[in-house]
């Protein structure tokens, strides 16, 4: 106690009650009380019907969480005496769902400039956005926020949890992916879009060559030598001298995208950075081939996730050949009007992608839709059209985790993983079930009964039976 500043020391007596009341009001005013940053020591969810996603469902079991990580799962788990126990008998527990590609949570989805690889969504994430509150309500516990599709090269994304008062507190993983769009941004046509992309990578090569040349010249100056070699030779000799701090913001992420290793004058230099991946937006079927070629040309194909528009199912052969993970559009049914007959043809995209054997993830539909913005409903739609239930559940949990390189931490209920758990009142694919509780890293982050905004929408009116229409 000694030495710690005391409440009474800096708040005058007459104000104390007011401050306490005000703080309480602040905490309870939000629909979802902000949880403490430190997860509780031990949490146990008992009597649950567990859908672990990996492995067989458990009819009645316990999930034990220790310091934010899942410690044990199974029908017979010994509960430590000090665990905070949540009895969820008869309810379903599934891993937190993952929104793998969204620009929601940002103030503006895209920068007005076309090529912005140096940007990081961390600077624009607003923890107080209602979007994050909605995520909790819908059982989404991890969101990959990344610049939207109206770009050439957008910035770095970031995987966040929808709780926390700062971006740091929210962060699950720093950005591992840049956004690239093959479909032209507004005001661009395809030629300009592709030319801009090529030009950007050419400019990177040129930049590194100039840095290498400069480094070699500096070295000569330092050693007080005067050797006159041509620029090509200088670049070759200088490429091993390029250091990480020579690469500016604009080029660092591009270099990381290309693998992080300096290449000058056709030869390899030092590996300066960890590589980055790319979420490549392909709005149309024709974009797939362009995306694959671009990614192969610049050595990021192995770290590419394709973000598809509805029409892309037509390029299923190319997608199959590329065998890269794909993010499906929010509108799962693609509708096209036959120009000749005027008839509307419908294609259920996930079934086609599933049949092609691709790793796919579902994203929520439009914000203002009632059902489609729920990932579990998106999965239910897949089951409706013949995708097996397990595969549909993976498409909203484990598959997105794999795409983000976070399958060691997220996407299933297994010991050692982050404790992202959603408690549903019933089967998550049954629409009458609702999200009752959400745990993120073991923190009880959401409780339906305390969701002020939702409870308002479910409250009775103030019908006054004595009032007459007069």
């Amino acid at each position, binding site marked *: 106690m000694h030495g710690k500043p005391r409440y009474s020391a800096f708040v005058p007596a007459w104000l104390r009650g007011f401050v306490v009341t005000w703080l309480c009001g602040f905490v309870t005013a939000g629909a979802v009380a902000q949880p403490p940053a430190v997860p509780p020591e031990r949490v146990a969810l008992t009597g649950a019907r567990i859908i672990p996603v990996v492995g067989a469902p458990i009819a009645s079991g316990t999930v034990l969480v220790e310091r934010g990580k899942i410690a044990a799962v199974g029908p017979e788990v010994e509960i430590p005496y000090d665990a905070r126990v949540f009895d969820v008998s008869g309810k379903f527990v599934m891993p937190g769902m993952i929104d793998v590609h969204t620009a929601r949570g940002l103030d503006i989805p895209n920068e007005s400039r076309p090529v912005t690889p140096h940007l990081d969504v961390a600077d624009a994430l607003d923890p107080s956005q209602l979007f994050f509150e909605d995520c909790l309500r819908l059982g989404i516990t991890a969101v990959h926020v990344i610049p939207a599709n109206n770009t050439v090269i957008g910035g770095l994304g970031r995987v966040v949890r929808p709780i926390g008062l700062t971006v740091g507190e929210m962060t699950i993983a720093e950005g591992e992916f840049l956004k690239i769009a093959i479909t032209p941004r507004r005001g661009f046509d395809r030629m300009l879009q592709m030319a801009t992309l090529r030009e950007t990578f050419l400019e990177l090569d040129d930049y590194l060559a100039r840095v290498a040349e400069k480094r070699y010249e500096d070295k000569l100056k330092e050693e007080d030598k005067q050797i006159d070699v041509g620029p090509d030779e200088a670049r070759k000799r200088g490429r091993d001298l390029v250091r990480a701090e020579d690469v500016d913001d604009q080029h660092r992420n591009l270099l990381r995208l290309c693998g992080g290793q300096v290449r000058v004058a056709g030869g390899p230099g030092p590996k300066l950075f960890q590589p980055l991946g790319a979420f490549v937006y392909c709005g149309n079927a024709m974009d797939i081939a362009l995306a694959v070629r671009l990614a192969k040309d610049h050595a990021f194909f192995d770290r590419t996730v394709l973000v598809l528009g509805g029409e892309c199912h037509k390029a299923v052969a190319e997608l199959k050949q590329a065998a890269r993970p794909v993010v499906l559009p929010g509108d799962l*049914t693609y509708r096209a*009007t036959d120009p000749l007959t*005027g*008839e*509307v043809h*419908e294609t259920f995209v996930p079934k086609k992608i599933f049949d092609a054997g691709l790793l796919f993830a579902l994203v929520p*539909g439009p*914000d*203002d*839709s*009632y*059902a*489609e*913005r729920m990932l579990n*409903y998106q999965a*239910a*739609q897949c*089951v*409706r*059209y013949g995708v097996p239930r397990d595969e549909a559940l993976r498409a909203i949990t484990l598959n997105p985790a794999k795409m983000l390189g976070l399958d060691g931490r997220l996407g299933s209920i297994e010991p050692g993983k982050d404790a992202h758990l959603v408690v549903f009142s019933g089967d998550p*694919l*049954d*629409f*009458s079930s*609702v999200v009752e509780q959400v745990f993120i890293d073991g923190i009880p982050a959401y409780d339906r009964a305390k969701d002020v905004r939702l409870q308002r*929408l*479910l*409250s*009775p*009116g*103030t*019908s*006054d*039976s004595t*009032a*007459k*229409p*007069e």
Partner: protein
Amino acid sequence: MTRGRIARSAIVGLLAALPFATADEHAESVVLVIQAGRVHTLTGEAIDGGAVIIRDGRIEAVGRDLSIPAGARVIARPTAVVTPGLIDACCTVDPEIPQQASGWPFENWRPSFWQWMARQAAHDADDPDHVCGSACGLPHDAGPLALAAATMSELTWGEQSSEVTPHRLVIDSVNLLSNDFRRLLRGGVTTVYVSADSANVIGGRGTILKTGGPLRERTVRRADAVKATIGGDPSRRGLPNFLPPYYGPPPTFLTRRPTTRMGVEWVFRKAFYDTLRARKGLKIYGADMPPPQALPVLQQVLDGDVPLRIQARMQHDIFTALRLAAEFNLSFALEEATEAYRCLPQLKAAGVPVIFGPLYMDAKGFRGRTDEVRQPRLNTPRQLADAGIEFALTAQELRDEEGLVRQAMFAVQNGLTPEQALRAITATPAGLLGLADEVGVVSPGAAADLVVWSAEPLAATSRPLLVLINGRVVLEEAN
């Protein structure tokens, strides 16, 4: 053309039509049997492992252990679930016909006609060239007046030549070949009441249609209920019909009446008041007089021969509707009724049935731009059910994942039982349309409008496999 030639061509025409006619007759006399895992009859308990026998487009029998007539075509779907075809009692067909001028900046500041003119003049002074180049056909100084001459009939389903148009028929606007009917069918909807939109205080008469089958069998009732609207819609909607979008001034008494809720109520009252006067042989006069053709229809409404629908969203608008109805001793069905949960006792006391919907998280389109949807409740259907008020659910212009069967699904998520929800999209709307025991049930004698679902109809994982209208398969999905 001589009389003989006319007769001859008529005979040729008849002969040409004959083979089709006989083929059709033949198709109808075929007996069809549908076997399913479960049949929701809506007249009693659901029948597990039941079958439906259809003859001549009507349901002949439904139940378990029925003997299958010889020569019957049997469709066996042992895991499927059969329900009656769904009924939307307040459907807006063809959402591709925009219900208001697209891009009309309802939220934003809109320049008045004169402001626009002034801006245009200033712009012209700066830049003497047309934006569209040298030869767009319009004289250089055409200005908005020339454009204003064009009226835009495709912008609304509400006839705007008068505020009171119960003598206009919505059927005249319906395109039976529209893709929208296919879309409705894919959602399992087989009968719709197509409503006029809310642009008029007293609008046109809706029509009851089947969504599939031969065109000559589509129309169930050409002219049905008269649609009236209380609230802000009549004064906000349809405005661009007077002047093209962006050129019109905000509604004033010069361009538009009524301009307020008071005005809307007045137009409604005046119409029925004048009808009562006309019935007594008294002269009718004054502003906002209903057109003479409207009087006979309003007369029938007063007599209860033509049903009346009133759309109202907010509590005070619902109260206004109840008050006006009491004033003229009208019975009506309430449409949309966003805030019905705030006037349950009053609705119950007045015995007014409610056609509620749609349910939404955020209202879209025109509805979203009205200020009347700020206080929705997700569990209004449950509250209506608990209050004992007769209600049907409607999706209005929404389709697919927000269409009628999904509306029922949303209602179940928010507290309605699946049985109540299914009833609210089948038997109850059938009753409200005066088609009880004809559609909306699976019982002997009813029209064979059936949907065969892959699972329980209100499950998110369920889809229609087969849709029948009058015993004809109008939609069939492989597997």
